[in-house]
């Protein structure tokens, strides 16, 4: 059957791609936090991330590959798992032996995927049009103003908050579980699980805080 189709190899691949995305989330939050602390720093870091050759030419394609791989593999495994029990139970008490987050990774994952669509629509696509279609001259001071403006609409802020809530659920199970998948279960696992659970809460809460903060601290119309 080979390692490519092996259930364990796929499980490890899901864990490693998940860990990569977990690391990315932390880095993304650090940059976003500067929007609250220092608009100049936010502009400077955003300009760097948007124009550095290494980030744009290498890290961004790796990130997109990581996201697509994690999603596609998750979907493939979900289909396989559903087919492994063709006849369903008339009575099934999943909540008695496993958490909601662990049993519904596909639901939280699909919400995150939908959020990514919105996030690309909000930021990535306009950025590509700005840079490569309309070919505006680069202005290193535009990022903060554009970002704050995006969070003017309360519906968008609400969608972001709900999505980050589901992201917390996804990370709550996924981050800690990825260590088990790669075979790491020993005396350090309790401490590592606590760290992973704390991370699963703090990262989404950080994103939620920034979205609400920017919504409540809109710039005067003249600066749009």
């Amino acid at each position: 059957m080979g390692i490519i189709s092996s259930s364990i190899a796929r499980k490890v691949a899901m864990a490693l791609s998940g860990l990569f995305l977990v690391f990315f989330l932390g880095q993304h939050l650090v940059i976003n936090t500067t929007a609250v602390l220092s608009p100049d720093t936010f502009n400077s870091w955003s300009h760097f991330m948007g124009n550095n050759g290494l980030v744009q030419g290498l890290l961004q394609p790796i990130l997109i590959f990581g996201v697509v791989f994690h999603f596609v593999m998750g979907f493939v495994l979900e289909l396989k798992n559903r087919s492994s029990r063709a006849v369903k139970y008339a009575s099934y008490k999943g909540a008695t032996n496993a958490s909601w987050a662990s049993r519904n990774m596909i639901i939280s994952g699909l919400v995150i995927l939908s959020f990514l669509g919105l996030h690309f629509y909000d930021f990535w696509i306009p950025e590509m049009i700005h840079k490569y279609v309309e070919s505006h001259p680069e202005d290193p001071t535009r990022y903060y103003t554009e970002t704050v403006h995006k969070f003017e609409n309360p519906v968008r802020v609400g969608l972001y908050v709900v999505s980050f809530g589901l992201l917390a659920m996804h990370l709550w199970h996924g981050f800690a579980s990825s260590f088990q998948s790669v075979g790491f279960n020993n005396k350090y696992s309790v401490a590592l699980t606590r760290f992973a659970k704390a991370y699963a809460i703090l990262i989404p809460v950080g994103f939620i805080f920034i979205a609400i903060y920017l919504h409540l601290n809109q710039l005067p119309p003249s600066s749009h």
Partner: protein
Amino acid sequence: MKLTLKIWRQENNKAKGEIKTYPIDGIEGDMSFLEMLDVLNEQLINQGDNPVVFDHDCREGICGSCSLQINGEPHGPDRLVTTCQLHMRKFSDGDTIVIEPFRAKAFPVVKDLMIDRSAFDRIQHAGGYISVNTSGNTIDANAIPVNKEDADNSFAAATCIGCGACVAACKNASAMLFTSAKVSQYALLPQGQVEATQRVLSMVEQMDKEGFGNCTNTGACEVECPKGISLENIARMNREYLSASLKG
């Protein structure tokens, strides 16, 4: 105790099954769950109906034969017991109890509540053993020094009775806990090292061939296992598998 039983009835592997309702009376709290089903079957036979078919053998929690999904949980609401060790005192007068076979594509229903768990046997046959020449010169196992912690963990893994509750509990019908227990009990001992690489590769390959689902670490298997087999075994099997794959 008066109860209402909702039991899966299926004539054979090809037939379409359905839940049928049976009222039952005179059940004592000291009866085991299987004794309660014995009472039901006597009642059905006296009425000229077909008795409910279910697996059982030792009735003391060591053979792994009994395999019922009771009110949505493998082996019922109690922890660390098999169906035969579940007592009716866990239920109350007037309760409705839903009884189904363990569900998995790899565990086809034979009849009513009896399922075919030979997929587990085939996983065992793929490598769950140690090849020993028993010509008469075999070294006494007690002469081989084994770390106490490893011996204890190996023994704990070996207490798996292969009942299939892990598969039944898992939302993905994954057999990882069973397979990992069988891999671990040898991986932890010096006697198991010689065939360790081929063992884990073959057993995992057979597990995948049987059509079990993938483990997503929900932990339901560990909670429902009547022998308390630990998830550490799955992590160990993952390590063994990765290491064996790299060795080729």
